[in-house]
């Protein structure tokens, strides 16, 4: 295992000998990694590598062996926001963005009406992600990028210290992806958030992450962007992925790497 232990930043999440076994299948084994605080860490790996399971383990939603510590946070487990890859609904569901956000803020049944305080809260949350204009739109009528911004606003509710995103740019076109990643970067800088994201898109990883974990059942390599060598990608994905050298800045959206 190529493990970069010389990372100078404080550690937000320390994963020690993590194992997840579901229905007698080992999803993750002997996972050791550190996730730096205040930075964006990308988890990459092929399908079935256990990326989503690792996020769920950090969220505490799957049983695991080993330890997940949060050394940067003195009061123990920090608040964690989660952006899922997709929502499961029919496109005909008459649910507005305001309805969706209210369900996670208010315990009062939606059919009993919404208090002005809740409406204001939703408006502020949407303004934070530049989505205030979407308040009255049905969620089934939103584009992929718009829905991701709304889900981001939901995840940011309660000002979490760590933000987990499961393939946030999957199914989003290039401009939408750029917009979302820029927004995420701005919010991260403002709130000093630790961001952990799963992505299949190596251009998103190379443009927006500062730290990478290559996962395939276990950690194949981790560290800064220079970890994304041809050799490490071969170890992770099991096939040759050639990386073309580029001079893009951190926010350019062009494909930097091609299979």
């Amino acid at each position: 295992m190529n493990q970069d232990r010389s990372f100078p930043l404080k550690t937000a999440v320390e994963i020690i000998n993590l194992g997840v076994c579901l229905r007698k299948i080992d999803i993750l084994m002997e996972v050791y990694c550190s996730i730096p605080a205040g930075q964006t860490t990308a988890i990459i790996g092929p399908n079935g590598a256990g990326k989503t399971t690792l996020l769920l383990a950090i969220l505490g939603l799957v049983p695991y062996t080993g330890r997940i510590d949060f050394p940067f946070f003195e009061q123990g487990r920090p608040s964690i926001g989660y952006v899922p890859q997709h929502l499961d609904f029919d496109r005909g569901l008459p649910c507005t963005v305001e309805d969706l956000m209210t369900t996670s803020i208010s315990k009062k049944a939606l059919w009993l009406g919404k208090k002005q305080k809740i409406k204001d809260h939703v408006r502020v949350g949407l303004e934070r992600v530049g989505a205030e204009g979407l308040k009255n739109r049905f969620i089934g009528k939103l584009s992929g990028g718009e829905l991701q911004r709304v889900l981001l606003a939901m995840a940011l509710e309660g000002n979490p210290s760590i933000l987990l995103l499961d393939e946030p740019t999957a199914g989003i076109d290039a401009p939408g992806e750029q917009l979302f990643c820029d927004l995420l970067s701005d919010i991260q800088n403002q709130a000093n958030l630790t961001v952990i994201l799963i992505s299949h898109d190596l251009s998103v990883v190379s443009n927006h992450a500062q730290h990478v974990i290559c996962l395939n059942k276990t950690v194949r390599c981790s560290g800064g962007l220079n970890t994304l060598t041809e050799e490490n990608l071969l170890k992770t994905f099991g096939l040759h992925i050639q990386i073309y050298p580029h001079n893009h800045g951190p926010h350019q959206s062009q494909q930097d790497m091609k299979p």
Partner: protein
Amino acid sequence: MMEPFFQYLYSFLQATIPFEWAQFDFVWRAIGAMLIIAPLCAVLGVHVVNFRMAFFSDAISHSTFAGVALGVLLGVNPSMTLIGFGILAGLSITLLKGRSDLSSDTVISVILSATVALGITILYAQKETRNLEAYLYGTVLAISDVELFLLLIIGILVFIIMGFLFNRLFLLSLNHHLAASRGIPVTLLEYGFSLILAVVVTFSIRAIGLFLVTAMLVVPAATARNLAGGISSLFWIALISALTSGIAGILFSFYWDTPAGASAILIGCILFLISWLKVRWFD
């Protein structure tokens, strides 16, 4: 204890409303039952459609057939064994779905087949098919004061619980992990909803019949989906649609001697058709 209260209420209503149908106690009992069942079906139906649980609901209602048969076999009131069997079937499906790699459709189908086959076998062996129509088609016009009172208690309890759980269930229907990440006890909520649904379905069978009780959950919610501008109006339109079709079904039954449950569902389907045409032509 409650009989004098109900008698006073019926007398008051009969004196207030001058129509022929309003002069009979059994009609008011039926309307009372529908005034409880319709809102329950509306609040649960919204989630049944979101969770795509129509087949699950059908399995619960059809599994009660075995409960009725068991009641006949044991010589106890089938209404009691029916409720027990419906709840057992609902919880069994939820348990098996969580512990099996099979699709939920397959699990539901296995339970449904087993319970219906069990019911037919028992009834055939017992040569007992009397009074089955009451369970198959429902007899809301034959509901008693005691049953109405019991329905009222169940209705109030379920409505209070659903008032607390509505938003959480809605979030759960959208994404399991998102709901769990917001601190919602997902597994407990899934079992809780299955239990509540089983209770409401089994208690509604007396009025609607086991063939059609799922329709009372799904049809008003489907109509509301076509018309609503948000989740709040989704619930209220489903409720108005369920109430309108339920009460109109009772009046149809009174004047034209049709089964009240089936008439209610037919009217509900006409309302759905109108809402669908409205979407097709005007939206």
